[in-house]
């Protein structure tokens, strides 16, 4: 028993310090993992916003574009993610494009912006938050 006690007391110091530093190390490790998770999520989000907006701007009408966006969002994020998106028309007040957007119709030369926001849950609570990506494109429908 005495030998056993002596054996454990030899590494006692390291054990205490490991116990104290372990929470910090765990925090750092989870933060690093969460950074990678955020990076992957943002990459996916950037690709989603680009591909969905691209499908929208080649539609024949605004309502068709909105349907396509809703369908694609549901397909990609469905009920598994907490998400929302904003699809809006941008008016170029300095340029000629105002002639197109003023009539409220969906014409070639109009500009639209799609912004997708998704809640990204990560290993670290400090990095778990809503992340968003947006893109501006020109409507390509030759109406």
């Amino acid at each position, binding site marked *: 028993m005495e030998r056993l006690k002596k054996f454990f007391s030899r590494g*006692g*110091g*390291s*054990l*205490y*310090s*490991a*116990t*104290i*530093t372990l929470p*910090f190390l765990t925090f*750092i490790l989870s*933060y*690093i993992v969460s*950074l*990678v998770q*955020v*990076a992957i999520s*943002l*990459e996916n989000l*950037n*690709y989603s916003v*680009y591909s969905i*907006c691209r499908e929208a701007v080649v539609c024949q009408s605004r309502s068709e574009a909105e349907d396509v966006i809703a369908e694609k969002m549901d397909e990609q994020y469905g009920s598994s993610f907490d998400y929302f998106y904003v699809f809006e028309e*941008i008016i*170029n007040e300095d*340029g*000629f*494009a105002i002639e197109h957007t003023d009539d409220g119709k969906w014409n*070639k*030369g109009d*500009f639209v*912006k799609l912004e997708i926001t998704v809640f990204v849950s990560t290993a670290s609570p400090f990095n778990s938050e809503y992340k968003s*990506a947006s*893109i*501006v*494109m*020109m409507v*390509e429908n030759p109406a």
Partner: protein
Amino acid sequence: MEFFKKGSGELVAFVLVLPILCLIIMFMATLIQVTIARQKLEYATYSICRAAVISDDYPTAMENAKFVAEENNGFNITFYKYDGSGVLGSSDWEKGNYVALKATEKIEPLFPIFFSDTYYSIVVMMIE
């Protein structure tokens, strides 16, 4: 007191190593920032060029491209001739011709020593 003394050596070492650990995390965050910013630049370049090549004439194309670039992230854009013989002019704007668009952006990441730079993306498209 004896309890803390026993582990103090390792604790001091950890405190000394902590700044290096923080630097490594900053370095990783910087890599991620640059990767995401460059990916956004790539997609924006494509959108900007699409807005230009489907426009009817040269002034309209430039106006559309500038507006999309400004709205996306304020990227600087320049159109070049596809054969590399200089900047694209209004006389080169003809259906079937190819254009090269170069979009640039100054990225200021968290760890600026090695990564703070002007990044660019180039895309080639045919005028429609």
